[in-house]
């Protein structure tokens, strides 16, 4: 071995150096000499670099020789001892490790030697005062010693009870290790070494519970000291290791199998009484029987009863502390520890079962499925926790809540006897805790106004897009964080699962809810909220079970009746209605916000549970959901969005549009009901959305609702906000009507049945189509066949009245007769209906137009602007039946003109735009009115004054050439907008009247126009205008 010789060459000088000191005669030997220390250090540091098992035994013995002689000296200084220990450690590591290299004799010598070196006295009194390095070296050598020993064939006999000497050193070295462990809390590395040494010793070398049982109490108390070292947060690795070792020894000592321990139950009372007499201290539930292998066994029954209570005390002292640390590694180790103990020692350590079960529940883990075997304790535990729920919730102890639901879940899965009083307790406690919490919060924040936003939110943007963007983190109850809420929710879900069967849960929920009939709103809300969670639990649980069943193919296909869901929905409906009535016309309070959120949350939950079966229920619940999409409260809106999304995903492939479209009838009926009850909140916004989505085709079927809105206008015209909303709604409806009946891009030309005596469009024709239709012979097939039936009176009522009128006109029923008579009075030769808009819809337009006319005198400016916009929209549509439009125009003319005279230009602008449309579509019908309009403007319009020069002294001519007047001037934006609209109106009027206008007026008008509109644009209108415009320009 070349390498060995090379090593030898390296080591030899060091050993020689050391030998010089070691072999000094005792009288000259200085135990604390520096030379010696240096020699030791040099050798030690050399050895440090060598790999494990790289030294031959011979070489090791060579190195060991000076050490042995050194030890034969009468004493040795601390540092020197430390290095001697280190060198021995290295030797064990380098050559005396693998099987057969560590002779038994050597081992037997080495162990007492080492233990003596580390601690001379049996009580280890000095060891704790030694420096840290010293302790570390001590631990190291023992660890190496046991590491080497475990690979030797004699390891089991090494500490046999037949050799008292070895037992003595065993005891000594264990106490040393424990002493080191306790005293090196500042050095986790050493602690871990000590623990590892103990582990190897117990587990791999001794491996006998009987022997270990002797040292167990000392170990346990040391370990507990480690866990509980005051004021220090013990290193987690140390904790983990300690738990591991503790677990090993406890398992070895208290193993049920080797102890053959059984728990026996009493068969009769006498037995119990005798037991009680014999063991007055022992819990009657803990009668344990053991079968001893030999009478001399240390671990007897009385030993067991005695020590196990110590163990329990130990466990109870450190487990809670470890649980509090919430360290993942510790949690893992603790889980392992606890479940192992439960698995292997449940009889021997039966007194610890409750603690262990409780620990596993707190950890919420059970890797060996031990909990189902301890249902009794689990039940106790759950009951205990349930009783404290009130406190737990108040302290927001989420961990406890989670543990409780974990425990409940296990009970659900494993316990066939469901305890419903427990469920009621849990539910009741939660309700109580939450209620007092919320009530106090709400009363504190009584005057707190929720942040409101306009109800037109859903009209503004893309409904679907906005809904998709909703997040998931909004808390439903004002006092609780989303996390805590979810945790309590989880607990309730477990409770729901525990109910097990629909009928049971239904019973439970129904009683809970019916108990609330006289409670306050908060309590009702909370009951609803809890129930919603509970059903989530029941059905989610069962559905996942069903998935498993699908694999197992039990053939049992459960059909749900969803009874609890219906109970909840009913309650939900009641609550929502209660709220709607209270809330109408007021701003929302915090409490109402919560109630609404819970209602929506419940609807969503039920939808999630019932899936397709929820569809028929939409009849009652969809409106609430959709309405609250427009809620002023962002929180409510969030839940409405989430709920709509769930409904659409469950039933309509995720399309909100489809959801609304499929239920237009239900929504409209809800709207109609509300309107009839005089409730207007948000109704028009929702209605507008529906109209947009459904299109006019569907709107036709609910004309009655539009009629109701007209009725509301009759009564509530004083409320400008409401009126604006209605006119916004009309705008939507009219746009839909236009989409339906008039092709938007088709230019709305005047019908061929009306002739305009306009100068430049002969016979009023403006396009070729009209010419063709005039030239072309009327096609007889175009004439609608006149049914002879339609000539009949359309109802008996008419018929009857006509008869009465014929027969006895001076009947006493005259009044009625006349009333009816007017209706059936043959309305002059009826005009042919040529508009593409059917009469019914046309009437709606007229009605809107009419109401607009009435409300144009309303003081609210935004309302008037809105009305003018709607009118502008209606005029072209009315013109499709030209002759029917004219009386309306005549009616409305004056009101619109009034608006143009306003000094507020923001209202003048829409008025001018509207009037322009009117003039455009009425043609020469309004010519005379237009002339009058100009005169009135000249007198009264403040807007016109901006651009028009006052007539000078009745000369009849405008001062046109004034130098300060330049064409195309600059105006403030509002004025400018109004002026452009005004000029547009003037040009429209000029086009219609043209040749009928006196030249001076025309010039006057055009002069106003070209100041705001480019002259070129004006000139393009017609030749005549061009002449005037360019003349004006020239004179300028």
């Amino acid at each position, binding site marked *: 071995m070349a390498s060995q010789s090379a090593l030898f060459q390296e080591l030899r000088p060091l050993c020689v150096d050391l030998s010089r000191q070691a072999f000094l005669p005792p009288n000259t030997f200085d135990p604390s000499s520096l030379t010696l220390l240096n020699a030791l250090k040099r050798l030690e540091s050399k050895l440090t670099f060598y790999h494990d098992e790289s030294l031959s035994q011979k070489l090791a013995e060579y190195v060991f020789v000076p050490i042995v002689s050194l030890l034969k000296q009468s004493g040795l200084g601390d540092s020197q001892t430390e290095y001697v220990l280190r060198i021995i450690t290295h030797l064990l590591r380098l050559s005396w490790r693998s099987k057969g290299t560590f002779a038994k004799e050597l081992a037997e010598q080495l162990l007492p030697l080492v233990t003596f070196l580390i601690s001379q006295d049996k009580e280890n009194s000095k060891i704790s005062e030694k420096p840290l390095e010293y302790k570390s070296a001590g631990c190291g050598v023992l660890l190496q010693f046991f590491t080497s020993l475990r690979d030797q064939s004699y390891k089991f006999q090494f500490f046999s009870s037949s050799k008292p000497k070895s037992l003595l050193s065993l005891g000594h070295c264990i106490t040393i290790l424990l002493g080191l462990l306790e005293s090196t809390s500042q050095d986790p590395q050493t602690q871990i070494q000590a623990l590892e040494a103990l582990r190897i010793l117990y587990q791999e070398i001794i491996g006998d519970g009987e022997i270990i049982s002797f040292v167990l109490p000392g170990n346990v108390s040391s370990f507990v000291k480690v866990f509980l070292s005051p004021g220090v947060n013990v290193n987690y690795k140390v904790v983990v290791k300690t738990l591991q070792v503790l677990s090993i020894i406890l398992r070895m000592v208290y193993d049920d199998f080797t102890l053959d321990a059984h728990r026996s139950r009493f068969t009769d009372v006498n037995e119990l009484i005798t037991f009680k007499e014999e063991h007055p201290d022992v819990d009657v539930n803990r009668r344990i029987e053991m079968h001893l292998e030999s009478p001399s066994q240390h671990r007897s029954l009385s030993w067991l009863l005695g020590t196990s209570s110590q163990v329990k005390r130990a466990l109870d002292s450190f487990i809670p502390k470890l649980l509090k640390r919430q360290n993942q590694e510790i949690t893992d180790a603790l889980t392992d520890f606890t479940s192992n103990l439960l698995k292997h020692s449940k009889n021997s350590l039966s007194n610890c079962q409750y603690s262990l079960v409780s620990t596993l529940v707190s950890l919420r883990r059970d890797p060996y499925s031990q909990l189902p075997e301890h249902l009794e304790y689990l039940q106790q535990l759950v009951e205990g926790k349930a009783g404290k729920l009130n406190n737990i919730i108040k302290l927001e102890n989420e961990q406890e809540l989670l543990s409780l639901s974990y425990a409940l879940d296990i009970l659900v899965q494993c316990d066939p006897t469901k305890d419903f009083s427990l469920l009621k307790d849990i539910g009741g406690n939660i309700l109580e805790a939450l209620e007092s919490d919320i009530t106090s919060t709400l009363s504190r924040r009584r005057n707190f106004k929720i942040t409101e936003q306009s109800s037109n939110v859903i009209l503004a943007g893309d409904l679907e897009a906005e809904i998709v963007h909703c997040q998931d983190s909004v808390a439903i109850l004002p006092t609780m964080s989303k996390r805590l809420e979810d945790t309590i929710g989880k607990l309730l879900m477990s409770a729901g699962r525990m109910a097990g069967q629909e009928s049971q849960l239904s019973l439970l929920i129904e009683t809970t809810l019916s108990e609330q009939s006289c409670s306050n709103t908060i309590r009702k809300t909370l009951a609803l909220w809890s129930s919603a969670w509970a059903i989530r639990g029941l059905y989610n649980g069962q559905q996942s079970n069903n998935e498993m069943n699908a694999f197992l193919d039990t053939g049992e296909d459960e059909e749900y009746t969803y009874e609890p869901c219906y109970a909840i929905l009913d309650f939900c409906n009641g609550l929502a209605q209660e709220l709607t009535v209270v809330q109408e016309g007021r701003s929302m309070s915090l409490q109402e916000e919560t109630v609404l959120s819970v209602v929506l949350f419940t609807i969503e939950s039920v939808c999630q549970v019932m899936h397709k079966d929820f569809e028929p*229920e939409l009849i009652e619940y969809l409106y609430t959901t959709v309405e609250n999409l427009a809620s002023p409260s962002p929180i409510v809106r969030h839940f409405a969005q989430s709920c709509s999304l769930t409904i659409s995903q469950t039933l309509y492939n995720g399309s909100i549009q489809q959801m609304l479209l499929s239920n237009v009838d239900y929504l409209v009926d809800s709207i109609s009901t509300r309107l009839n009850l005089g409730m207007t909140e948000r109704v028009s916004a929702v209605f507008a959305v529906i109209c947009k989505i459904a299109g006019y085709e569907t709107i036709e079927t609910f004309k009655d609702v539009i009629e109701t809105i007209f009725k509301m206008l009759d009564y509530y015209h004083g409320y400008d906000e409401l009126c604006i909303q209605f006119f916004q709604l009309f705008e939507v409806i009219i746009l839909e009507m236009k989409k339906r009946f008039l092709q938007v891009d088709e230019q709305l030309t005047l019908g061929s049945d009306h002739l305009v005596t306009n100068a430049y469009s002969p016979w009023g024709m403006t396009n070729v189509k009209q010419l063709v239709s005039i030239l072309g012979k009327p096609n007889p097939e175009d004439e609608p066949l006149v049914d002879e039936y339609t000539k009949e009176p359309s109802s*008996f009522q008419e*018929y009857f009245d006509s008869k009465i009128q014929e027969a006895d006109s001076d009947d006493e029923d005259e009044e009625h007769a006349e009333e009816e008579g007017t209706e059936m009075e043959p309305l*002059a030769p009826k005009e042919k209906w040529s508009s593409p808009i059917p009469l019914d819809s046309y009437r709606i337009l007229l009605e809107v137009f009419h109401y607009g006319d009435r409300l144009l005198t309303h003081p609210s400016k935004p309302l008037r602007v809105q009305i003018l916009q709607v009118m502008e929209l209606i005029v072209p549509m009315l013109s499709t039946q030209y002759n029917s439009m004219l009386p309306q125009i005549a009616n409305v003319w004056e009101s619109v003109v009034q608006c143009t005279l306003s000094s507020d230009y923001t209202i003048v602008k829409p008025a001018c735009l509207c009037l322009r449309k009117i003039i455009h579509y009425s043609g020469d019908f309004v010519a005379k009115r237009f002339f009058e309009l100009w005169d009135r403007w000249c007198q009264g319009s403040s807007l016109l004054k901006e651009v028009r020069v006052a007539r000078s002294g009745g000369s009849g001519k405008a001062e046109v050439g004034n130098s300060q007047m330049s064409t195309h001037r600059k105006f403030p934006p509002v004025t400018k907008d109004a002026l452009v609209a005004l000029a547009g109106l003037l040009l429209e009027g000029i086009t219609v009247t043209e040749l009928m206008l006196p030249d001076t007026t025309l010039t006057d008008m055009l002069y106003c126009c070209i100041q705001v509109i480019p002259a070129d644009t004006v000139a393009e209108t017609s030749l005549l205008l061009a002449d005037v415009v360019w003349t004006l320009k020239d004179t300028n």
Partner: protein
Amino acid sequence: MNPIQLPEYTLRFHKSSVTDLLVLDLPQEVAPLLVSGDATGKICLWDLIRRRPISSHCIENEPQIVALQYVDDGLLAVLDKQHKLRFLKIDGSWEQVYEIPVNTLNFANFLVQRLDTGWYRLICCNTQDSESIDIYEFHLSSLHSLKRVHKGLKFYQAISSLILPAGFKLDKLGIVMKFTEWHGVIFCGMESGFVIGFNLIDDGQVEIVYVSHVHYPNPILDLYPGKDNILSSSTDNKIGIHDLNCQQDERPNFERQSPILLKKELHSLSANFKQVPISEVAHIKKIENLLLLSSWFGETVVTDEQIELLAKFSKSKSIVEVNENPQGNLQSNNTSSKSKNPNCKVSSLEGLSSSNSKDSNYVISTNVGQRRRIERFLQNSWCIIGYDDGNIAFHRL
């Protein structure tokens, strides 16, 4: 007085006046259904629980639906203003099984009686003269099976032998207004206010068993065959109560003078009536002990048997009146505020009785949700009103 009550819900489908309503309580259905017909030829079958149309059908050329009658075997008889009586399958296919031309230049409905499997009898107005009655028999399998059993029956002659009260200046009964059937007897209401009940006797003769003049001279507007008696309404403010007080005894020997016979025991006219709080009662229905009356003025009232007013339904219109007529209407301008009927017209009326379906088979329906809704729906009786604007309003009674 009770304020006007609002409908519990409204069905919206028709775009024109709802001209007839018919509740169907079919044994194979878990809940009652409703059929509605409108002025533009649309017929709609409704699921009253889901409040949605099950299916709908439009008769070609969109004539006004005049009347609906359910005949056995899932067939619906539909009379329209284009002079057609059609038998349609009600299973959603709306397949036409039979058709007969019927004179509809009047206000009368029709009456179909089932005689035997496939055999039916139709009672309706005469093809030329609405004042007389035709009776047909036919088999559904063949259009040629149609046979006119009686042609142009007029009752004036027959009843003129009865002693009329003083002050009656009567030379005819006027056109037929309404047909109905009660305990096998066919009743028809006449324009002159007479209600006549008759039987068809085996040898092809017609036997008049009942005559009432309670509404004279006002026309009969509606007849309703109730449980205990027949009710009639007219333009006056009373409802006639008609009962067959004379027993159906063995056939006596008649004076064989014409195809129309007058029952021997029948000597006097009945004139039982009750005063009601409204007049112009265009529709009358009775469910259990509630009387439903609708007037021409859009008012529907509910009274108990003592004619105590219980509820009042109406649907008001907005104040603003629009007129698309370019000529304007001078007369209406004068009286515009006074003349306008403030309510939407009631164009049909139907009642749904809660006891109607007490032992119905809805219980077998497995779906709890559906069962709950059906139960809730059948808890009460319903007044169903078809309006001129195409809505069908449901009022819980």
